[in-house]
């Protein structure tokens, strides 16, 4: 495998893989939407936006190299996601107030989303400890790093476009209904 493996390169690869992990959560939500025919609520759509925002920050790191502004953007996306998912949890936190959708492995999707966002905040904070990632590149990056970054970018584009389409069909031009009934 050609290319230089230094801290910057490893972190770029980790960011690309992290973006794919975050995007896979949105794909999972899509799976539940179409396989179990559960239309997403407005807050669920906003949680997807939090995932996409986090993914954009990580994709920028993977594509153009780690920069504090990219990490800052990813953290803002995580914090937005935490706010929305906490609101969604709080809506149903009192026993007997019901829930939205079915539980997956014991937790509802908004609870999983909260845990994912918190985990991402911790992971990003830890990765930022490695100061040498912000040094200039010492040589050409291995091809796998560029490939993973490109795949993550394409997945982000596809996810944003797909969500724009399915949300337009579900909500039409007005605000999304609080209790949606149509999947597509």
């Amino acid at each position, binding site marked *: 495998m050609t290319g230089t493996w230094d801290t910057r390169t490893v972190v770029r690869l980790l960011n690309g893989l992290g973006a794919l992990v975050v995007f896979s959560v949105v794909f999972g939500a899509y799976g539940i939407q179409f396989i179990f025919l559960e239309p997403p609520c*407005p*807050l669920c759509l906003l949680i997807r*936006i939090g995932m996409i925002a986090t993914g*954009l920050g990580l994709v920028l790191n993977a594509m153009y190299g780690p920069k504090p*502004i990219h990490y800052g953007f990813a953290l803002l996306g995580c914090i937005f996601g935490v706010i929305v998912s906490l609101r969604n949890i709080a809506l149903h936190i009192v026993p007997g107030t019901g829930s939205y959708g079915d539980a997956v492995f014991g937790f509802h999707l908004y609870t999983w989303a909260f845990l994912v966002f918190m985990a991402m905040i911790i992971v990003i904070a830890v990765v930022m400890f490695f100061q040498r990632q912000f040094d200039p590149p010492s040589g050409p990056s291995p091809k796998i790093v560029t490939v993973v970054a490109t795949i993550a970018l394409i997945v982000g584009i596809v996810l944003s*476009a797909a969500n724009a389409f399915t949300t337009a069909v579900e*909500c039409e031009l*007005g*605000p999304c209904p609080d209790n949606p009934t149509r999947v597509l």
Partner: protein
Amino acid sequence: MMAALFIVWLGAFVAAAKGRRNLSIVIGLAALILSLAMFRFHVSDNITLSL
């Protein structure tokens, strides 16, 4: 409205793909602010906090 928000996010990714890194961040930040406004819109009623 929410679909338009996703289109703004799509714009941020497309800007990143075209090498416009700074533009991507600017569009992303604008989209994040719009997303916060959308969140506020969807929780505008029945907010009762007991801290």
